[in-house]
């Protein structure tokens, strides 16, 4: 199979999977088997793309010419490669986990759940490989709509309210800003193709660059830049596997991916940096990442805390992209992968804790480490990765982001990054620490509690624990794979170094 065909297959395979899954409601085992096979097959066809991507090839394919000069098509480039790899790799892990979680909980509407999940993955692949903003926009909206039934899975009043916020914010930002920016770009340049070095150079200058950038940045509501971040905490009413894959990986990363990709391939980082209009976006991102970290500290609900942590970490990526220099862009690209693996670990742990103990609050987790050592251990590793401490993958991306701020000469931004990292420690580490070092709060009798807890390990079902251990190990592996990711992404950032 040619690489260009693989791109199309990578998008359609999960769709076909979704179609089959939707008809197998009566035979859950078969249905789950199809999900697993599809996710495995997806990863198997995406991995061979690494070769061409590393060697700098950009195979491309057009599916349909929707309007003259405006094809629906796909193209391989490093950032999309990374995003696709992360999404498809973590889909397998999450599928295994979902099966354990959904069955452990005896959830209703499981067929709808797995169907929509597969459609969402297809949309993520479409976003990753989109060859122009138009294609990206289409799959961006497909992702919004396919995840709506997942967010409102429970169908109660809370889910309905969350669904309104979710769809309301994501749809209105994308339609009002992103679509406007897209058509504007088309109007200016007559093309929407993602092109190395950008397409806007010479077509737009001065404050207009800033306005267009703003339309793109806020239009990608999935990036959860303040003040359009409310949908993310709201979406936490969804079952945990949804929060894990979609709201730590596919959906939120689709937002920051869009911003990064637009900065690199539509504006071109030179244009953006030289215009000086990128700075205000840097400040918005810096504000968001600090404010979200501060809010996260105040949240006692574990998933909500993780949600605000995600908002904060997404702004790291936006900041990196907005810096518009090679370090910043590299850091942004890397953080998409690093944060994904770290944060999915944390969410999977939160779900496992919920399945095993029905606890949702941070303050209830004292002493849980003795009962669920694997889960809480993985939580610690995931937390270290998100904070960005060695030997976890996250340390590389934060390193490059810090380099980027230094290169831009923005010491305030550097300071914001550092302070936020301290805040990360403050809201993530205590969870793991409490679990291991504090006595269990379950029983009033302290003596009894420690004896009781020390004696037995009662983890969540195996199907839940194994995936989160795998992603925790992934955090570790990414530290050592930093060099490869750097090499993969480098061509994208090289663009600046070519020009004087």
């Amino acid at each position, binding site marked *: 199979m040619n690489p260009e065909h693989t791109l199309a297959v990578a998008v359609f395979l999960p769709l076909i999977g979704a179609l089959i899954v939707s008809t197998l409601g009566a035979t859950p085992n078969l249905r789950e088997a199809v999900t697993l096979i599809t996710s495995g097959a997806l990863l198997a066809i995406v991995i061979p793309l690494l070769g061409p991507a590393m060697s700098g090839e950009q195979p491309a394919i057009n599916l*349909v010419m929707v309007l003259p000069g405006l094809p629906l098509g796909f193209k391989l480039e490093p950032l999309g490669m990374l995003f696709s790899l992360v999404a498809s790799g973590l889909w397998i892990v999450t599928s295994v986990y979902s099966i354990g979680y959904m069955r452990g909980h005896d959830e209703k509407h499981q067929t709808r759940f797995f169907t929509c999940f597969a459609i969402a993955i297809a949309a993520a692949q479409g976003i990753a490989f989109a060859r122009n903003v138009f294609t990206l926009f289409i799959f961006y909206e497909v992702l919004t709509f396919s995840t709506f039934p997942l967010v409102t899975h429970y169908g109660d009043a809370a889910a309905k309210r969350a669904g*309104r916020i979710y769809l309301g914010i994501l749809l209105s930002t994308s339609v*009002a800003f992103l679509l406007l920016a897209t058509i504007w770009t088309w*109007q200016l340049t007559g093309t929407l193709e993602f092109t190395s070095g950008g397409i806007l150079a010479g077509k737009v200058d001065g404050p207009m660059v800033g306005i267009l950038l703003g339309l793109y940045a806020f239009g990608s509501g999935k990036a959860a830049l303040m003040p359009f971040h409310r949908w993310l905490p709201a979406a936490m009413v969804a079952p945990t596997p949804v929060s894990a894959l979609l709201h730590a990986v596919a959906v939120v990363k689709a937002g920051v991916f869009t911003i990064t990709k637009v900065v690199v391939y539509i504006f071109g980082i030179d244009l953006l940096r030289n215009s000086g209009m990128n700075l205000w976006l840097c400040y918005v991102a810096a504000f968001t990442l600090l404010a979200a970290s501060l809010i996260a500290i105040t949240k006692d609900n574990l998933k909500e805390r993780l949600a605000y942590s995600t908002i904060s970490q997404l702004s790291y990526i936006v900041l990196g992209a907005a810096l518009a220099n090679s370090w910043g862009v590299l850091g942004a690209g890397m953080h998409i992968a690093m944060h994904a693996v770290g944060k999915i670990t944390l969410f999977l742990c939160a779900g496992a804790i919920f399945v095993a103990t029905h606890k949702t609050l941070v303050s209830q987790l004292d002493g849980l480490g003795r009962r669920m050592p694997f889960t809480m251990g993985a939580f610690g590793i995931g937390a270290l990765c998100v904070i960005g401490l060695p030997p976890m993958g996250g340390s590389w991306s934060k390193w490059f982001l810090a380099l980027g701020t230094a290169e831009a000469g923005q010491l305030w931004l550097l300071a914001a990054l550092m302070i936020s990292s301290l805040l990360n420690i403050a809201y993530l580490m205590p969870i793991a620490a409490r679990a291991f070092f504090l006595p269990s709060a379950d029983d009033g009798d302290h003596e009894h509690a420690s004896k009781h807890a020390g004696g037995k390990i009662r983890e969540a079902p195996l199907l839940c624990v194994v995936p989160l251990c795998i992603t925790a190990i992934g955090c570790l592996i990414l530290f050592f794979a930093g060099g490869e990711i750097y090499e993969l992404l480098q061509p994208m950032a090289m663009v600046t170094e070519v020009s004087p």
Partner: protein
Amino acid sequence: MIAEQLPILQIIIPLLSAPLCVVLRQRQLVWAIEVAVCWVSLACAIGLLVQTMDHGPIVYDVGGWPAPLGIVYQVDPLAALVLVIVTSVASVVMPYAPRVLEAEVAKEKHYLFYAALLLCMTGLLGMTITGDIFNVFVFLEISSLSSYALISMGPQRKALMASYRYLVMGTIGSTFLLIGIGLAYMMTGTLNMVDLAERLQGVESSRTIRTAFAFLTVGISIKMAIFPLHVWLPDAYAYAPSVVTSFLASTATKVSCYLLLRVIFTVFGVTFAFDAMRLDTVLMPLSLAAIFVASTVAIYQTNVKRLLAYSSIAQIGYLVLGLSFASVTGLTACMVHMFNHALMKGTLFLVMGCIALRLGSVELSDMKGLGRRMPIVMGMFVIGGMNLIGIPLTSGFISKWFLIKAAMEKDLWIVALATLVSSLLAFVYILRVVEVAYFQEPDAETLLKDESIAKTPLSMLVPTAVMAVATIVFGVYPTLPVTVAQQAAEMLLWGGG
């Protein structure tokens, strides 16, 4: 050669079949004739479209009398597009009709219903095809009178009042049209549109012509339900039989829009209408008002058919907005949306018919839990709704795309943004229905009403599905409507190239 006679066949077949229906009376037979006539008409329209796209506009002298003495039929790409819209909607709606008609209209009246529907279609086709402005008025009256009759056959008594209100407003509209035609004739002595356009050149600054222009525009605006002349529309759509609503909502306003395009661009010309008469300063604010006011009102409706009717008024706003740009992109947007809106509203009103048949009501409160009880039908509602919002890969998106591009070409940023924001209002009213249908459990009372008919009959499901699928197909492959519309737009603006 039959191909040369297509323009007259387009009109004469449905026109003669209507009295045949009244003579035959037998319900099934009449219906069969009706379906056959619609399909033949569709074939004619497609034939005309192909001919005009290949060989340019067709001029057909009725009875062999050349213009300006006789009446001519004139088919250019725009007219052909509208002919295709009208006949294809009719062809899809007809097979759908008998089942829902049984539930809504007394059986002994069916043959009259079918006859009126054929006349209505004839009128709409005639308005589109004719090149003679007085002939337009004649066909307008044919379609209007038959549609008053059709609306009054609605299942509730309120239909009579709705029909009466439409009659009053519609008559004012067509009278205005007639006055306008009269004034123009007074100054030029001709009724042929092309001829009229030429002879207007010298006299266009006269007050009489300006008055004629005003009467014509306002008259057509009433028929088209341009805000604030829309008051007849919500009741008429809400209380008419489901078949009639589906047919009229997809075709009647489109033909009126076509007429407006003809009068403004072909007869009076873009310089007169937009430079001398500043039509854009009237139409643009009105269209934006229509979009926002009607969409907002739609949000608060409890009857879903009424909700969709208000949504139609908003969508007509988009048509007028595209027209008011007076640019190729703007007119393309207008015509593409004419086509797409026919599809999407067709889908939605056909869905309403299915629901009305099952529930005996289209009140929002009766639709609780409908997502589970009628999954296919509600699925198609969601597709139609996504079209209204303008989600990518649906045809509504293509319309929005051109509309926004047209606004940007004129540097009207506020209008571009307003257009985008307005689609969020559509999102709100569609979401209201979706939430009730998918997230609320049906209560005992609504369940009781349900089982009069256990399943949606296939004869209704298939036409609805055809429409729904078409909205997606033309969202992914919009080449056909877009090329035709672009060609037609260039012709309207720069003359018959």
